[in-house]
């Protein structure tokens, strides 16, 4: 690792890879930082090199992403900084950025003239009675175990929520040899069908994106996995671990639950850097605002992919390419006309993917389907703050003020889990949420005091 780079890309998923590939051949010193040891992002979270996995992520739906990953891994002259978290992002006096990283061996800093944030998204955490019982996972967490570590964290799994991705996850769990007790959609099938019918052109043009969910549902049905609609979660039950779920249709026994109500952007770093943000979508969260070249409101800071709004891997790839061309343009490596010609086709594809993402947002919209919390339901898991502890604070105060009064959002996750819930409870659309604080990820004080 060098100390200075022309460009630091945070995130080695589809957007970060695409930007690095778009910038190859320009002689830039580029570092790509990722919390995972290997590139791929969550969508192609790779198995460890020590494993041999036959036919890994072999589906057609992943083919373009796998191709790009192969090209990225073959890039030379790029510093891959895997296994590192970015704790902080700030400006230094010479207008370059300082990134504070932490890894297995401690804290490091690097400087970069430009930074591209391609940090992806996370599962929306949805509190409901019993959701802190061991065995309740973010659905994406279960999927990552299956894709990468090649385990299934349970023998009989219930997936519940509003996002169609849970069909694909259930299909992957069944293919891995575990059993799915039920897939529960809170919304009705008719409501989902109506939305598709209202946007027939978008749906038809993006049939290839819809087909995997349909095929997964057909396979699940053939295997006898119940896929039910209009079934809301009331609670998760068990002693010291999950034993079942209670839903509007009754009780279902299981030993693990995947909650799948949608996704929110990873927003800690753009917020810490002071970039302009917007409300991300129906699932909540904050997205970095960008111009047509993926520039944020902070000079020299770019964002691409789900950090700018959850729109899927194909849209992220497009945005990464546009960001790459934009960075080349801003560094004087490409003339405006050449930059625009390079991305003309990409912009058209990007717009198409964003239209489909907007339709998927409406289909998966969790608003109105969030489970009802009990007074004892924990909202902030880090600090074990219950809904009952918050109620007295919900008197028009800001999220920051509630944090000070209740400790909600004060733990190591920096509010990533509880902020969307608290903002829903506050009901104030103008509240910008918690102030983003250093460190974006937990770190040992000793490591900060004595960096390498």
């Amino acid at each position: 690792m060098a100390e200075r780079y022309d460009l630091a890309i945070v995130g080695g998923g589809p957007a970060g890879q695409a930007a690095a590939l778009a910038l190859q051949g320009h002689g830039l010193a580029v570092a790509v930082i990722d919390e995972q040891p290997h590139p791929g992002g969550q969508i192609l979270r790779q198995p460890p090199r020590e494993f041999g996995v036959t036919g890994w992520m072999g589906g057609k739906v992943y083919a373009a992403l796998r191709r790009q990953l192969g090209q990225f891994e073959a890039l030379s002259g790029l510093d891959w900084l895997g296994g590192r978290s970015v704790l902080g992002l700030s400006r230094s006096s010479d207008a370059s950025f300082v990134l504070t990283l932490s890894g297995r061996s401690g804290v490091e800093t690097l400087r970069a003239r430009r930074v591209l944030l391609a940090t992806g998204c996370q599962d929306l955490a949805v509190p409901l009675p019993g959701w802190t019982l061991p065995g309740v996972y973010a659905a994406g967490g279960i999927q990552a175990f299956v894709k990468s570590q090649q385990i299934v964290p349970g023998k009989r799994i219930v997936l519940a929520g509003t996002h169609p991705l849970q069909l694909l996850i259930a299909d992957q769990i069944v293919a891995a040899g575990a059993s799915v007790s039920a897939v529960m959609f809170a919304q009705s099938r008719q409501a989902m069908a109506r939305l598709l019918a209202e946007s027939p052109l978008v749906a038809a043009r993006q049939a290839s994106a819809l087909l995997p969910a349909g095929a997964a549902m057909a396979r699940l049905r053939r295997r006898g996995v119940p896929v039910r609609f209009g079934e809301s979660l009331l609670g998760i039950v068990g002693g010291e671990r999950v034993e079942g779920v209670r839903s509007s249709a009754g009780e279902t026994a299981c030993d693990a639950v995947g909650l799948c109500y949608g996704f929110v952007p990873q927003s800690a770093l753009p917020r810490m850097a002071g970039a302009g943000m917007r409300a991300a979508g129906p699932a909540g969260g904050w997205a970095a605002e960008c111009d047509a070249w993926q520039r944020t409101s902070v000079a020299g800071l770019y964002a691409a992919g789900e950090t700018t709004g959850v729109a899927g891997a194909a849209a992220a790839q497009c945005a990464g390419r546009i960001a790459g061309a934009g960075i080349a343009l801003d560094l004087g490596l490409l003339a405006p006309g050449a930059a625009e010609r390079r991305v003309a086709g990409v912009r058209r594809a990007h717009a198409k993917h964003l239209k489909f993402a907007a339709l998927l947002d409406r289909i998966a919209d969790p608003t109105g389907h969030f489970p009802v919390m009990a007074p004892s339901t924990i909202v902030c898991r880090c600090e074990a703050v219950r809904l009952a502890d918050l109620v007295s604070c919900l008197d028009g105060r800001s999220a920051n003020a509630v944090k000070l009064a209740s400790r909600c959002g004060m733990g190591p996750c920096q509010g990533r889990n509880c902020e969307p819930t608290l903002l829903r409870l506050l009901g104030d659309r103008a509240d910008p949420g918690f102030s983003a604080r250093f460190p974006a990820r937990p770190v040992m004080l000793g490591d900060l005091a004595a960096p390498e």
Partner: protein
Amino acid sequence: MRIESKVERQAPFSLQVEGETLRAYPGETIATVLVERSPVIGHMANGDAQGLFCNMGTCCLCMVTILPEGRRVRACLTAAEPGMEIGLG
């Protein structure tokens, strides 16, 4: 449960979790070793049992201690190593 079909693993090694000897395969994260043992991976601030949640480094609920150095790490991002001693919070 570890997926057996179409997956080849190398020879396993052993490590300690709360003094209990467990088996792990090269490449596995501490989170995998813990979840294969039990969904309970520690305790919350109120004393209730804690499970793993996001498995991608974001929720920070899977912090464990590597002994004897005392380093706190997220189990889902940290590879298990032969002879490792892990304490649960």
